[in-house]
């Protein structure tokens, strides 16, 4: 079927261009929903009462409840609100540090010859090393700095994981800005710093937002460093939810609600930053 429709699109006259490919919609739609079944299933379970959950996954006749969302947000005395807060602080902290470090230094690397190829090559090369390589050294380092089980330790670890991504995306962005713009600012007597912060950075806003969004997502989703560096106070939602599920007597409704809630921020951000996903994923810290 697809053979015929594509060929006719290329060869026959105009009206056929407008023919809708509903068959493609059906197949792609089924695949798209199929791979999201884990999430959709959790969404469904999160609205069932514990009784209805116990009656089996195929019981579709149930009275929806928001009880589990109330529980996940604090009503049942779980630590989930604190996990959410930790995840937010860790992700925001990492975003800020990544930008503070990568924006000026990448500009210096691209325009002022700072570090030469070393910075780009190291950034690209770090993508290759498994995060686990840094697990033991980071544990020892944070232990020496007396930062184990603190939010700053996880902010620093996630800054490290996402810094290469920031440098790679920003260097592409800086290169796209015509040098003439900066030269004009210099001629007008602006210093390098003023040129960077009041001329170049505003022009680069979309790339900076993309770096921020991707660093937020990857930091929010981190599990390995949380497992290594956090034990209770600094636990983010990924670790908290995974620990909850391995403990005995699982409250599936509550854990589903917490899981659904905690997947929302990265997914919403990702939709927002869709067009940067490819370079983000090629250069970023995909670990799992």
């Amino acid at each position: 079927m697809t053979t015929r429709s594509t060929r006719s699109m290329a060869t026959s006259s105009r009206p056929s261009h407008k023919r809708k490919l509903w068959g493609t919609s059906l197949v792609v739609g089924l695949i798209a929903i199929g791979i999201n079944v884990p999430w959709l299933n959790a969404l469904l379970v999160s609205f069932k009462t514990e009784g209805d959950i116990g009656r089996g996954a195929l019981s579709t006749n149930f009275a929806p409840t928001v009880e589990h969302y109330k529980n996940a947000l604090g009503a049942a005395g779980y630590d989930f609100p604190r996990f959410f807060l930790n995840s937010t602080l860790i992700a925001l902290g990492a975003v800020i540090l990544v930008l503070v470090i990568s924006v000026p230094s990448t500009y210096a690397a691209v325009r002022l010859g700072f570090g030469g190829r070393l910075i780009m090559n190291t950034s690209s090369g770090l993508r290759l090393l498994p995060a686990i390589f840094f697990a033991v050294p980071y544990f020892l380092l944070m232990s020496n700095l007396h930062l184990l089980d603190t939010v700053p330790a996880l902010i620093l670890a996630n800054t490290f994981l996402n810094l290469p991504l920031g440098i790679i995306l920003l260097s592409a962005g800086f290169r796209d800005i015509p040098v003439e713009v900066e030269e004009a600012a210099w001629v007008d007597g602006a210093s390098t710093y003023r040129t960077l912060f009041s001329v170049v950075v505003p022009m680069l806003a979309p790339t900076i937002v993309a770096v921020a969004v991707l660093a937020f997502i990857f930091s929010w989703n981190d599990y390995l460093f949380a497992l290594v560096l956090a034990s209770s106070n600094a636990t983010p939602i990924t670790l908290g939810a995974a620990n909850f599920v391995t403990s005995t007597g699982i409250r599936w409704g509550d854990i589903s609600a917490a899981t659904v809630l905690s997947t929302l921020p990265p997914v919403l951000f990702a939709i927002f930053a869709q067009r940067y996903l490819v370079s983000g994923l090629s250069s970023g810290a995909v670990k799992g």
Partner: protein
Amino acid sequence: MSVQSKAGARSAKWVLGAPLILFSAVFVAVPVFQGIQTSFYALTLQQSSAPFAGLQNYRDLFSSPDFLNAAKFTIGFALTVTTIETILGFALAMLVNRTFPGKKIFFTLLLVPIMVAPALLGVMFRLLLNGDIGLVPALLDKVGLHIALFAPDSIIPLLVVLDIMQWTPFTFLIIYAGLQSFPTDVLEAAQIDGAGRVRTITSVILPIMKPILFAAVFLRLIDAIRTFDVIYVLTAGGPGTKTTTLSIFIYKTAFESGEFGLAAAGSTVIMIVLLPLIPLLVKRIARQQGDLA
């Protein structure tokens, strides 16, 4: 540029670069050095000062059946999922690479699995596969199949299927982005020539797409080799050590057995094996600046 601004730029580059130098010194250089250094010491979780052990950790590592099994499982698993996910990702990209109703929403939906935290996906998989209340066992039951999903015989195929659900969107996205830069007139010319769809793919699209397919395979493979989150949440490497990846082996060696030196040796070996691949990656990232516009 005037002479003055050149001199200003010379000092500015060090001022602007200072945060990166500072951060890299403490949080990149020190950990890399310490990671390698630890592998030569008999360091454990319990004692902070340890004697120099020379190559003993490396000897222990290569005589450890757990390490060799983990390496074997990781390589087999990574090659299997990468092959399947590249083929499926390519097929899906070819399918989506046209205009059809609902494309935008379905495209977004296809990318959701990449963005869900793998650890949380692991939790959702546990819910989905739970013997008492899970959807998958219930459906299998309904059609008369009684499969113990987490039994030693079925656990690896199960993990492969789950990985395909999770990461085919990744290979799809990389390949789809590549197709966008594919010249449509070549495709149309091939079709007007009367080349069938299969021939269009094998003799026109595949050759041009080679670099993109290579990138998808390469990126997916290095991620698959470090697999940790989903498998750790689902099986913790078990039953026994059957599904222990290298990352899980290193984590357990360090933080469950407390043998930091041995774990560091394992990490260093992986790094040495992967190091020769870095130039490939540098080239790839330097070339790939095109976003999915």
